[in-house]
């Protein structure tokens, strides 16, 4: 069976440029959620979101392209031209649509993600084709699992996954209308959690078949070893109450990786900070792990919920946890919810297993689970 390995990744998050800044920010236990300054929030549910410093909202270049351009220009020389590109985003260059309606400055059609895909393929210098995967907040974890599946099925041996989303008035007003936002900062798995904080990020991961990575003498940074994707078929905005669909995704992922739950050393949960999501996740996880707690964390108290980019960001942090053998703290956790006691911590923890689990859930009831393996266990 062909293995799918990551040979390069990088990202920009509200903590700043580069994977290291995000990793160090999370370990510091401080949040990157700050006051929104790019549009008026006076009538929104919150004034706060996790925004990337120094982005310029009114440029001709969209916010997501301001994040992606430097990342892709840096990596482009190392990307084979026959690489297939998968873009994951929920709103992409949505400010073009906003500006078309507010002041007629742009054509709304320029906000379509296929325009963004073409820019990404041009910037990355690829001509191997491309596609867009959209599944709400599961978009980029679904993109990574599709890439791994295509490599395992020998459809492609080099795939670039690119993920991005920005904090916009469009999205913030929408989440405000759903009353889904915490007025201050998201507190995943906390007893007093009351909503999510929006965030923005962009990143990429270059995946190759193990065979091609070895042939091209590329270092492997980790393996996407197994995956599962399911749907609640229950409610458009609310998760299923019992977590059965997410637990099925985890079971499918473990089967796909050929491992048991005993091999999983820690869990990167979706952990949005909404009452229902976090409760559903704990129920799903307990269906698999029973009463044997495994260190579990959410990054979203620090990075905010970066929507279509969340899955990729969390997979990259998942590889960091494996390579550094450290489980990051759950930022903003003060008073652990009873359901999560013994599982989450506001302190960093060490662990030894070379295997970790990363889960995401999104509107429409979509759930993803990925099994990540440490690099040196495969090459």
């Amino acid at each position, binding site marked *: 069976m062909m293995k799918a390995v990551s040979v390069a990744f990088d990202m920009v998050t509200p903590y700043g440029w580069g994977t290291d800044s995000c990793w160090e920010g999370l370990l510091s236990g401080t949040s990157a959620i700050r006051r929104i300054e790019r549009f008026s929030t006076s009538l929104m549910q919150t004034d706060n979101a996790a925004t990337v410093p120094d982005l310029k909202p009114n440029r001709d270049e969209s916010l997501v392209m301001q994040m992606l351009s430097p990342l892709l220009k840096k990596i482009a020389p190392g990307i084979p031209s026959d690489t297939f590109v998968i873009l994951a985003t929920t709103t992409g260059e949505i400010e073009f649509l906003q500006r078309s309606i507010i002041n007629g400055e742009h054509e709304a059609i320029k906000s379509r993600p296929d325009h963004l895909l073409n820019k990404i393929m041009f910037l990355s210098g690829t001509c191997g084709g491309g596609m867009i995967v959209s599944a*709400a907040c599961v978009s980029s974890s679904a993109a990574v699992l599709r890439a791994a599946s295509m490599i395992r099925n020998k459809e492609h041996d080099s795939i670039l996954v690119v993920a991005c989303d920005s904090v916009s008035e469009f999205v913030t007003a929408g989440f405000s209308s759903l009353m889904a936002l915490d007025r201050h900062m998201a507190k995943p798995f906390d007893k007093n959690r009351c909503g999510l904080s929006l965030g923005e990020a962009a990143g990429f991961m270059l995946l190759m078949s193990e065979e091609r990575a070895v042939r091209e003498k590329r270092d492997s940074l980790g393996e996407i070893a197994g995956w599962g994707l399911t749907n609640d078929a229950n409610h458009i905005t609310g998760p299923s109450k019992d977590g059965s669909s997410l637990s099925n995704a985890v079971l499918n992922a473990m089967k796909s990786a050929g491992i048991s739950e005993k091999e999983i050393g820690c869990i990167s949960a979706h952990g949005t900070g909404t009452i229902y999501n976090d409760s559903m996740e704990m129920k799903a996880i307990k269906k698999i792990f029973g009463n044997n707690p495994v260190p579990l964390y959410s990054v979203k108290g620090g990075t905010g919920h970066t929507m279509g980019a969340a899955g990729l960001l969390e997979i990259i942090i998942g590889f960091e946890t494996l390579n550094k053998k450290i489980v990051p703290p759950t930022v903003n956790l003060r008073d652990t919810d009873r359901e999560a006691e013994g599982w989450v911590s506001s302190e960093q923890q060490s662990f030894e297993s070379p295997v970790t689990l990363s889960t995401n859930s999104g509107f429409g009831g979509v759930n993803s689970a990925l099994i990540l393996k440490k690099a040196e266990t495969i090459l």
Partner: protein
Amino acid sequence: MIAVTGIGWLTRKEYGCLFSKINEPHEGFDTLYSYFKDKSYFSCPVKNFSRFDTISKMTCFSAALALKDAGVSYSADQKKDIGIFGANEAGCLESNLNYFQDYIESGRILARGNLFIYTLPSIPLAEASIHFGLCGPLLHLFFNEKRIPSLLSFAGESITGGETPSILAVSAEETDAICFVIKQEDDTSSGKNTGLQNVIAAAGDTYIFDEMINAFKGIV
């Protein structure tokens, strides 16, 4: 082999089920829901159908026809391990415009959640999954070439890869929609199916809906 066991489609004027040789005119999308209920294409009421955006309605209509064509009964309470993949030309651009225009016209005071949720292109698939009880993988996809053949190939590869035993593959636009029931089929002797590769070949390179339907009629 991977087989297509049902194909449902509709345009502004007609709808059809390819294997069942149904090809009927209708009086317009506004009355189609009642008409489909009377004809038992929907075996139970679709909750909140009136608030669906157009693409969600088209997705549900075409999925009901395709499942009927494949002889698959359903119930929202009896979930099935069937996935749903969708691909269309404009994604959710129209819903994005409707939502944000409404928000701006209301003085940027409060957005409407019922419009906001349709600003995700995967939501029409989610509406269908809730009604038909589909709990397999759900993805909205955009391919930069050969949309329907690419969607069908992608669905077939997911089944071959063992990710799900069956998938509804939907391409729904504001004016027309088509849905395919795709599954691993051991017995191909019944005649009420055709190989996925035949359907992919028939779809060819055309984006003209009527031409595509005629090409499919030629192979079932």
